[in-house]
């Protein structure tokens, strides 16, 4: 019952922007490093992949899967669900006008992973994230997110870890200038 309510709320939350006129959707690809939790996640390098959903002109919701590449090729994965706000202006104008090309994102969310003391899959971390620099926008069709730092609080052992994403690319399928012609 509780799961259904959460799922329904999430779906409702995601469909809201479709009526607000700012909806955009991107495929995300990039890099990830999980630091200071080597006993739980021994990865040295991860591939970041997922989706970025525009909720309003300055809020977005990002789903990011981080999959281990080294030392185990396509080893364990985690999923981060993060809501982020653009700090330097509209992330999308909802029109064919490009708007702000450079931005900063700050956000919060949760990580679902097996990186817990018990090794069980579930909500493992609370996340606070800062992306100091983004270049591009949904309207232009592409965006780079650079040097993202995420503070991760592990709920199972009450310790902090750090996630670092050197670069992530967002390739927009919906919400670009092509949709506003």
């Amino acid at each position, binding site marked *: 019952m509780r799961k259904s309510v959460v799922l329904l709320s999430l779906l409702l939350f995601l469909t809201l922007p479709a009526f607000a006129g700012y909806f955009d959707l991107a495929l995300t690809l990039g*890099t990830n490093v999980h630091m200071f939790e*080597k006993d739980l996640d021994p990865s040295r*390098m991860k591939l970041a992949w997922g989706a970025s959903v525009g909720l309003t002109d300055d809020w977005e919701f990002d789903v990011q899967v981080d999959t281990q*590449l*080294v030392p185990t090729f396509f080893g364990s994965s985690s999923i981060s669900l993060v809501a982020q706000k653009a700090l330097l202006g509209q992330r999308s104008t909802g029109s064919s006008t490009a708007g702000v090309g450079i931005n900063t994102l700050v956000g919060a969310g949760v990580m679902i992973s097996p990186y817990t003391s018990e090794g069980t899959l579930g909500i493992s971390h609370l996340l606070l994230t800062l992306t100091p620099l983004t270049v591009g926008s949904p309207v*232009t*069709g592409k965006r780079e997110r650079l040097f993202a730092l995420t503070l991760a609080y592990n709920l199972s052992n009450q310790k902090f870890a750090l996630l670092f994403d050197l*670069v992530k690319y967002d390739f927009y399928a919906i919400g670009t200038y092509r949709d506003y012609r």
Partner: protein
Amino acid sequence: MRKLLLSLVLLVLCTSLSARSLGYGVGFYGQNVEAEPARASSGAEFSLVYKPFLLPFLNPSLQVKNAVGTEMGGEWVAPYWEVGVSVDLIRIIDHPFNFLAHNIIAYTPSVSVAYQYDPRRNLSLASVGFSPFKLSQKDFWYEFFSPFLTYDLGSGELDSWGVNLVRYTFFFK
């Protein structure tokens, strides 16, 4: 005869046919040593590149690389130095990967062969690499998801494997 050949080689190197031929690069590498998992490392890879030509097929370049990163235990190491040759197999503009860049860009997948030295183990290795998602502009290379294998030059056995998740090379001269 040998002097003449040397002079010709020097002439080719000095009068490169490519507009910008000298570049430096930085990438994000990860490497796993098969026999010693504790030596798996990741970090930054720095490179110097000399690209004398701009051929549509089999375009060669000389590359010197050094990787600096941390091992499983957190120790800072320089897991490899490398000298080798990379060859862009083809150079095409009309390809399905233009969506990856903001401008029209050439698709130039490449293969590489190099001598690699691991100073941690005083080990000489042969490295082979493949860069399937390499995009090139006049003064920039963008490479994504480039795997490599290294073989022990003594025994001929596979020593390590790795990936350069991203690598950016800028040609300045």
